[in-house]
């Protein structure tokens, strides 16, 4: 993985590091629980888990300010939890219940929060890229200093509309950070088989958009790069690309047997590069936390997740009248 090595010592407090551990663990445990509920038939349809990629959103949220916006694809549970949307509401949306963030009408792929500036949750690969640039367009129009994080995958990076958007974002200097979450597989197709360039961020060069590759398994490296990108956008210099090299442990969706890669490949990533284990090690070796402290966090997270699962099971199905609402404002 050719990612920029962080040379300086991470400028992060023990509290911040502990918070990243907690935030990543919440996503990991939440997704495991979602997988389990899917297996029990409580969650239907498509369900794309974020396990393995936690450092990406947690690192970038650490670089965001209040009011900054974010938008992503259908692999969106991690982004929602990281920006502070309630686990209960997310899980209940997964089960299609009244208490879900979209009242059960959106599902795993379609959730939104005006309050947390989260703009979805989009199911058409690449479509969120111009939408995200549009959010940035609105911020620039209002001159409010906000930045939009527009997340998409290595697969979406081959959609034409991404480059239409790069072009316009560059000519109009839109304050948008394009975050390419390169988890190396576009569903089942390895990057080397689908993508002409090994480093996707270099495609920005054609449009004059600066970019860099980032070690997406290292939350501090992500935060560091995120801060550079945000500073660039906020200073009015236009868009910035971060290609965050990451890895998803689970299949593309729940029904993906993932035969396109070896079990060893996944195991190696898990045992050597896991983003949560890395922070755990930092906390322990730096004596910022004890085993007991971390156990307490684990327990606390497990409770949040179990509660969200209970809520998602107990929340009633939406009333039938909901079928006919929210079609027109």
């Amino acid at each position, binding site marked *: 993985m050719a990612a920029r090595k962080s040379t300086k010592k991470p400028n992060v407090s023990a509290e911040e590091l502990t918070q990243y551990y907690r935030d990543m663990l919440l996503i990991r445990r939440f997704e495991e629980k979602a997988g389990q509920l899917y297996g029990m038939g409580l969650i239907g349809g498509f369900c794309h888990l974020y396990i393995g990629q936690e450092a990406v959103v947690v690192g970038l949220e650490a670089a965001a300010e209040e009011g900054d916006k974010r938008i992503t694809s259908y692999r969106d549970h991690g982004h929602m939890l990281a920006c502070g949307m309630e686990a209960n509401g997310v899980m209940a949306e997964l089960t299609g219940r009244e208490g879900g963030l979209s009242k059960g009408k959106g599902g795993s792929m379609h959730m939104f929060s005006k309050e947390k500036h989260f703009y*979805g949750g989009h199911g058409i690969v690449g479509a969120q890229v*111009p939408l995200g640039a549009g959010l940035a367009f609105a911020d620039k129009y209002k001159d409010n200093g906000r930045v939009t994080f527009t997340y998409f995958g290595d697969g979406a990076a081959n959609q034409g509309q991404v480059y*239409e958007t790069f072009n316009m974002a560059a000519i109009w200097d839109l304050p948008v950070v394009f975050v390419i979450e390169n988890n190396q597989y576009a569903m089942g197709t390895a990057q080397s088989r689908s993508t002409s360039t090994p480093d996707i961020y270099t495609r920005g060069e054609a449009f004059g958009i600066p970019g860099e590759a980032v070690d997406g398994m290292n939350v501090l490296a992500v935060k560091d790069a995120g801060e550079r990108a945000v500073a660039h956008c906020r200073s009015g210099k236009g868009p910035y690309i971060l290609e965050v090299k990451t890895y998803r442990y689970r299949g593309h969706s729940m029904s993906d047997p993932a035969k396109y890669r070896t079990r060893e490949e996944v195991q190696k990533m898990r045992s050597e590069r896991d983003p949560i284990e890395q922070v755990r090690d930092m906390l322990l070796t730096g004596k910022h936390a004890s085993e007991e402290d971390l156990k307490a966090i684990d327990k606390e997270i497990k409770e949040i997740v179990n509660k969200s699962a209970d809520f998602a099971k107990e929340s009633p199905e939406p009333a039938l009248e909901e079928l006919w609402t929210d079609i027109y404002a």
Partner: protein
Amino acid sequence: MATEILMPALSPTMEEGTLAKWLVKEGDTVSSGDILAEIETDKATMEFEAVDEGIIGKILIAEGREGVAVNTAIAVLVEEGESLDAAPTAAPAAGEAATPVEAPAAPAPVAAAAAAPAAPEVDSSPDWPAGTELVKTTVREALRDAMAEEMRGDEDVFLMGEEVAEYQGAYKISQGLLDEFGSKRIIDTPITEHGFAGIATGAAFGGLKPIVEFMTFNFAMQAIDHIINSAAKTLYMSGGQMGAPMVFRGPNGAAARVGAQHSQDYAAWYMQIPGLKVAMPYSASDAKGLLKSAIRDPNPVIFLENEILYGQSFDVPKMDDFTVPFGKAKIWREGSDATIVSFGIGMKYALEAADKLAEEGISAEVIDLRTLRPMDLPTVIKSVMKTNRLVTVEEGWPQGSVGGYIASEVMQQAFDYLDAPVITCTGKDVPMPYAANLERHALITTDEVVAAVKQVTYR
């Protein structure tokens, strides 16, 4: 505490599967993420991972067993030091599977098929007060005036599209707007419909009110994913939290001799989409009044104009703030023998036909729908209850046409009032040819409308 491991559903449609292989045995310690078993679904063999940590206390379903129902307990996980006896011995049939309540039939959206309905309530108030000064205005000027007036009143409204600013509009609709509003609000885009439709939709999510001009609606096919999937559906998908207050506008349908790829009428396509509103004005006053309403509407609006109509002049009332509501048809001509329903440039043929028919003593009532979604069916039905005959006129293709929808609604809501089958006059079922004579035949003609009315009136 012992936990049951249940047979998982591994696809949206899986109900049962084969427990192909156990990768753990009784007594093994497992932790979250370890592969427990391989399970065959109808599509693939999947690895099944542990969620909880513990010791495999008992395997309840042997490997090789086919037809294991989802949610059957297949093994029991115990904690360290816990006796295996703590494990339940018999496998209960199913755990806490979701058993969605049998949904009762959804309420019918429209009260269908009342045999002899009372005449529907319709709003037939005039578009402007009697005595209002009228100014001859082209459709082109009316559209420009509508945008300028709305932009003066609302800073969040802006216009984006190809050649809308410095070129003053490919069809000169935006003439003068750059001078008045500047390049922040009148924005030339690159030729990149998919991209700028998406950016405009995102800007609408972000609180602005974009007007997107497509040089023609033919090019909007590049952008239709954003129009439908992003703009029209987001309000619903977000449970009402956010939507796209915006207008997609531009010329639609055939111009003259521009060939198959530049001559399509999209009225029926967009009319089908819940979440969109669709306007297709004929006159200049409707172009102005409806566009002003469209810009103020909190929903995404498709505004279908026509290049041939741009240069035609009509009376437009001189008023400070003239608007036309959506969902209110206009009766252009009252009549008693047959109803002709049309919209957009189809009105030209409908009105010409009514003139010709009058010469032959046939009195046709001519209705302009003005908006297709919402559609003012009550006005159509009330008219059919009077004339008992209906002809629809449009430029688009026959299969899945606007007229086809109107005919089916009239049949369901006013069957007993029909004295003849409804005739739907449409463009011919062919791509648009270039040759002048062929193009004339491909489009709907006034003579065809006249013939249709004669047919339904048995003359």
